[in-house]
């Protein structure tokens, strides 16, 4: 039995490993979208569950939406540990890794090229705008987005409009027609 295998909440035993199995794929996906790094994504997810596991019982009870809470931890940790320059370095390293070890096999040249273009253009958006678009496209509610990114609920709609406009502008200016 590991330290994070369960947390006692009164008489109830909540199995953190069950939550891990349930949410790992989408948390990993979110971390990967943000960082473009497999290793960092794994660490972000592991760290988020460790924090959940060691959260005090009182605090744990107060977390109504565990899923959103985990996403928020991942986002905050990403922001804390990865600066923009650092991210650019990781992106580059990842791209070289992809080209070196998996040229056309796993995703194909076209997808890899598109990824490079989108990734480069996304650097022009803030981390917050990137995360907002990822969450938005993955179907998160405004309430969840507000909680995860710590922004005012009433401003989520406008934030989405602004981020979309910025993404469209940067993609269309430089790569017009690429995705048509």
């Amino acid at each position: 039995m590991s330290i994070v295998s369960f947390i006692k909440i009164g008489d109830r035993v909540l199995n953190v490993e069950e939550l891990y199995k349930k949410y790992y794929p989408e948390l990993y996906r979110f971390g990967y979208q943000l960082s473009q790094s497999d290793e960092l994504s794994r660490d972000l997810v592991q760290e988020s569950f460790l924090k959940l596991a060691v959260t005090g019982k009182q605090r744990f009870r107060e977390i109504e939406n565990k899923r959103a809470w985990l996403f928020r931890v991942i986002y905050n940790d990403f922001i804390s540990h990865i600066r923009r320059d650092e991210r650019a370095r990781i992106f580059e390293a990842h791209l070289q890794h992809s080209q070196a070890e998996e040229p056309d096999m796993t995703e194909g040249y076209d997808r890899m090229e598109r990824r490079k273009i989108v990734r480069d253009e996304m650097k022009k958006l803030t981390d917050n705008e990137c995360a907002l678009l990822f969450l938005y496209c993955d179907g998160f509610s405004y309430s969840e987005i507000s909680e995860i990114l710590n922004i005012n609920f009433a401003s989520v709609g406008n934030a989405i409009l602004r981020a979309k406009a910025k993404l469209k502008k940067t993609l269309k200016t430089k790569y017009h027609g690429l995705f048509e």
Partner: protein
Amino acid sequence: MDCLSDLLLQQYLDNEVPGNEQHMVADNLAGCIACRERLEDMSLEKEEIGEILSVLAPAEIPVVELRRRPSISRTLWPLIPASAASVVLLILLFGGQKRNIESALEIERTVYEYMSEQDPNLMWQGKAVQIIIERENGEVVISQ
């Protein structure tokens, strides 16, 4: 009839229109071709952006076991005698509590819980504080 704002159309698309404006938005869309077309464009745009961003998602999601990371309590655990029916001095925190324990890992978890309750922000990690763990008949007392 005035056309809807971009914000209201966005909120409608996302099922997030505030309750007091839902009727107004529905009425407008029923009677305004231009707004319906804008809504349709917005819907297509959402799909397109989703498709564009999907290239940044991982091609595969590896299954990784939940693991533990090195921790203060684990690092110190070897210092605790196996037969620990004695008072053991450890590096850590304040207060005094009684908890049930059954194994070494239980102690480890208990210390983590205790520390986290004292400071949910985990600022204790990496710092040296002093606590006492006393083990008696399967019970442990954590105190300063």
